[in-house]
Structure formats: structure tokens, C-alpha cells
């Protein structure tokens, strides 16, 4: 009984990490998720340290309310 329990436990653990590795490798389960709600360029990034001149990265949303000023 103890042996069966151990086998189930170890088998379950190995199955779990294999599935996790599969999901992580082929489906990017553990990568940073894309934004749930896309951020407008003009809102700027909320990444710490984003500051400057009103660009997405450079402006930040707190100081200048700027955003992307370049052109495509």
C-alpha cells in the first residue's frame, strides 16, 4: 500500500512537471502574459523608470501624459 502510494505520488509529480514543461515549451505558459487590455501608445508604459519626453517608454503615464510621437 505504501509502495503504491509512493508510486502514485512520484508518477503524479513526474507527470505534472512533464505537462508543465510541455506547456511551457510549446505554449509559453510561463512567459509574461500579453496585456489583458492593450495599452495605447499615448498612455505610455507603466514600466518603472519610464520617464522623459512623452514617448511611450520615455514619457510614462504619470508625468507628461505623452506617448508615441514618431510616425509609422
Amino acid at each position, binding site marked *: 500500500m505504501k509502495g503504491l502510494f509512493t*508510486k502514485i505520488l512520484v508518477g503524479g509529480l513526474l507527470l505534472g512537471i512533464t505537462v508543465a514543461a510541455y506547456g511551457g515549451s510549446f505554449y*509559453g505558459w510561463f512567459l509574461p502574459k*500579453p496585456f489583458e487590455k492593450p495599452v495605447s*501608445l499615448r498612455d505610455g508604459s507603466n514600466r518603472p523608470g519610464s520617464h522623459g519626453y512623452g514617448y511611450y517608454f520615455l514619457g510614462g503615464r504619470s508625468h507628461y501624459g505623452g506617448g508615441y510621437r514618431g510616425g509609422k
Partner: protein
Amino acid sequence: MVDSKKVLFNASEAAWVKVTRGGPSVPVMKREFKCPSCGAANAVTNPGVLMKVCDYCKTAIYWDKESALRAGNKSVDLPPSARFRLGAGGKIGGKSFTVLGRLSYRHENGTWDEWFVEMADGSIMWLSEDEGELFLEKPLKLTSAVPAFEELRPGMQVTLNDKIGIIEELGRAQCIGGEGQIPFVVEIGETYPYADGASTDGTYSFGLEYDAVTGEPSAFIGTILTPKEAKTGPEDRGAQAPGAGEIIRCPSCGKPYEGPREKDTGMVVCAACGSGLELDEAEAKVVGKNTGKVPGFTFKIGDPITLEGVRYEVMGRLYYVEIDEGVEYGSFEYVLYNRESGYLWLSEEKGHFTVSRVAHGRVAVPPIPVARMSVRVGNEVFRIFESGEVSLRWVDGALPWVAAVGEKTRYTHMIKPPECLDQEITGKEAELFRGRYLSHEELQAGLPKDKELPRARGVYSCQPYIPGPGVSGIWKIASVFLAVNVILLFYSLILGSGKTVFQEHVPAENYKQEYMSPPFQVTQNGSILHLIGNAPVDNSWLAMDFALVNAKDEVVSETFGESSFYHGTDSEGSWTEGSKHFGSYFRVDKAGNYNLLTHGQGGSGEGGQTRNEPVSVRITEGNAISWYFIFPILFSGLAATAEPLARALFEKRRWPSASDDDED
């Protein structure tokens, strides 16, 4: 002096008449005569018989070369055998026989019997019974010289014509008596030197007997039988326990011995005073005495133990000690007996048990045995575990040999778990015991339910490794996962490198502000994108922010990368640090057109200005992140090696002293 077991005479044909035995259809030869000592009528039924012990006065009667009868010495009353009886019918290897006669011999450490049986075709075969072992023997005409008795040593190799044998026992034997019809001429009371042994592979036994006067050797050779290979019917065996009704009084204290005793019991130990009593045909002789407290035996004399389906009883107990570097190590030995199956040796040490039987054959133990050294035994290889000398500290009950307290035995213990092989040399006797480890479960199953066994300590020399329930079989499961993950790893490496969907060289003047790339297409929902960057930094750094912008000018994902590469020389030589490359994975939920927004800043040295290195950026789609499979590969590999690891640890505990030596 008459040569023992030498055929001297062919019986006169004229003296024989045909009679019937077992019905009119079975005629046999019979010759009747009167005992020259008491005049009682005797008869022999086989022409090969040369000696008859008078059925009435026990005088040995011989025919000499002129067919005259001659009276020899009287035989003692021999104890009944549990296995054979005069006149009894039985079978050897499926062939019927009738017991014709018997001779009994005594040597320094006990007695043995020789039974003469007549087969259905009239031929006489010869069965030796020694300490429960049976040997089917016949004379061997020596065509090559054998060493003189004085030159023989236990364990020595001798050549018998084209055969090679190993001397197991040396001694002087005295014929103490006989009964029935005997195909040899043996003087009762005669003493002669002898050597017993077996072939190197243990398949046959041999004996050498030396004439007491001339020293002329005669040889015989035999097959080693199991007790079941030659036996009489149940109705023909000794009906009562040998020695029943016969009181043995201890010469030391005068108290009667009331313990177990069998026909071939060589000694008993007085329960009252602890004196070891060697059983002579006439009286018991004290050969040693137990002193001090009774050692902590697990079993008592008379305890029943069922092993391999046979119910044995504890006949005798021995306690041996070995002193190594001032530390005393004790081991117990129990002599188990069953009338059908003979003797079995149960050993106990540190709560571990082994069960052994007498074995034969050559074991080439090196002069200086070293632990772990391989020893070939036939087609098998054993390893030497230890060797040393034990001293008998205590003995009680009844034994088929004489064991005196204080006697020393040199031993070599060899193992092939769960089997073990012990070569023991005591005095002039070299014995081989082959045994196996007995688990507590197996032993307990053969004991009364309330019997408790001592707790086993450590790992015993021949204890087999039995994986615990938590380890057993895990490797199979783990191996499956190991194989699956290795396949997935290679699959992800081969097929998961992705295809390039974007590639651009971004100069510093672009990324220093913010630079939006031309659009590129992501073709699949939920794609894993791999952004790979490379900048020619040289003792400088470049930190990049990236944002993935969809067609609605919305950022759906962000990532970053950093190139930082420094190098130089110091007192220890040249050095480098960091990398010019960077990379990161990020995910995109929806397929579509995207732009990459890039911003970067850099520097050099400590607070130095940026060197405005350009950066190359490439994005691939359809990637697989292979290194995730490293984790399940490591875990399953660890689980797969749990059992071998546990086995290795078990083996390390099996050989603690050898390991210590290695470390030294």
C-alpha cells in the same frame, strides 16, 4: 592384522542352496552355518558376504581362505538408526534394495555408519552415513601413488588415479561393531588412519584408509546423495528414538541427561552442570564444560522450526566469539534435526539468520584472504567477506560431532548474496557449509506465532538487497518519463527554432528616441515569439526596451534586453564579462500585423557616455523553449537512479570494514 574392507574370499558355491524370499517366484541364495562362538544358527543370503555378525552373541564371524569359519571380536550393541534397519527394503534412485548389514566406526569427533545393501540383481552397494549425510560408495583400485597419511593436511589436494580430490577430514577410526552381513573383512576394535574428502566440484566423495601396520592405502569413491535419494519405507525405519530407555549419566555431576538424542549424536551437554559429554559405546566422557551465564540464545533446545516445508527441532546450540582489536563479536549456531531430512545449521548474528548445509568441493581460498576478493567455486564466483578465528564459548543440547568449549575454528566467510559459503577448519577437519540468508519473514513463518525474533542490526554479509516499497518499481515509471522528456527535448530543439518574421538593424539615433519598425506578420494565434538582439558593445552597455504594437497603435506586449560586454587584463591575466547578445521570449495571443517599438540607452565604463552602438534585432515565430524539459529530465533521472543509489548505499553498509580500509 587383516586389511580392512579387502575382499579375501569367494564363497564356496557348494555351500549355497536356493530358497525363496518374498514369495515362491523370487528365489535367492542362502547359506546357513553355526556361530563358532555360541553355536547359534546364522545365515547369509548373498555370495559376496565375507563377514557376519552373529545375530545372537554379536561375535564377528569370518570365512578365511579355506572356507573355515573364524570367530572375531564381539560387537557392541549399536543404537538403532532413524534411517535404516537390518532387513529393511528401500530404494536408491528408484532401484529397490534390502539392507544386509552395517558397520559402525568411531573417530575423534563422532561416529559414522556404513550400510551394506543388496540390490535386486544381487549386487551389494555400500552407503556411508555421516552426520546425516549419505554417500553411495565403492572400492577404487589405486593405479597411482597417494601421499602417506602423515603427509596429508585438511584442504590438501590429492590425486586419485585420474581424479582430483580435496582432503576434508583426517583421523583414526575404530570399528566399534556391526550387525548383519558384511561384504568385507573388518576386525571389530581395529583402529586405522583414514582421510575423507570430496572432488573439487563436490560431485563425489572419496576415502583413503591406511593399513595400521603397513600403511598401505586403499581407496573408495562415492556419490553424495541427498537423504531423499536413498531411504527405506516408513514402516522399516527405527520405530523409537535412538537411545530411548538408555540413561546417560553425567560423569561430572551424576545427573541424567534428559535432552534430545539421535542415533548419530556424538555428544550431549549435561543441562545440570554444563559438561560436554562425548558418547562412547560404553560410557560418556567429559570433553569440556560451559562456564558463566548462558548466552542470549533466541531458541531453546527442542524448539520447533519449520524451514523449506520441513519441521526441524533444535538439537544443539553453540555460541562462538571472535575477538578483533579487543572487541568481542558473538554469533549463535543452532543444530536443527529432522529424521527424514537430516541436519541443518541455523546461524544468528546481530539479529540476522542464515541457514546452511554441509557442502563438498574445492574452494581455492588464497593464503591471505582479502575482503572483496573473488573466489571461484565451480561455475560460480563468491567474494571473500572476512576470515578469522572463532572460539567456542558455549555449547548445549546434542550434536552429531564432538565440540569442546574453547576449541578454535579458522573460518573464511564468502558471499554471493543471498548465498554464503563458509570454509571452516577445526583441528584436522576442513568443512564447507553452503547457506543462504533467511529473512525474518521466512523464519517467522516457520515459528510458533508468539515467538519473537531479535531486531536485525545493520546489513548482514549475505543479506540480499530488497528494494523498499517506496523505491521498488519507481525506476520503471521514472524511466518512461525520462524517455518521453528526452524525446520532447530533441523535438523542441529540432522543430522549435522558429521562423524569422522580423529582422532589422536599428541605429542609435533611432532607438535613443523611440523607433517604430515597419510592420511584420505573426501568423498564428498564441505564438511564442523570440526576440534576439546583438550589439557591438565593447566595454560598454546597451539597455533596450521593446513593445509590440498592434494595428490599432496599442501595445500588446513588452519585453527588454541588454547587451553588456567588458574585457581587460589584471594580475591574473585577461578577462571578459557579459555578452553582446540578448534574447527574450514573449507571447502573442492573436495573429496579425505588428510593429516593434524600440527604445534604448547605453553607456560605457563608470558613468561614461554611450558609444551609440547600433543594435540588430530579429524576431522568430513558432518557437519552443527547450530548456523547460531539463527539469523533468533531471527529476525523472533522479527517480530512475533512486533504486541503484539505494542499492549502492546498501552495499556500502554491507562492507563497512572494507570501506574503512579503503578510506585508510
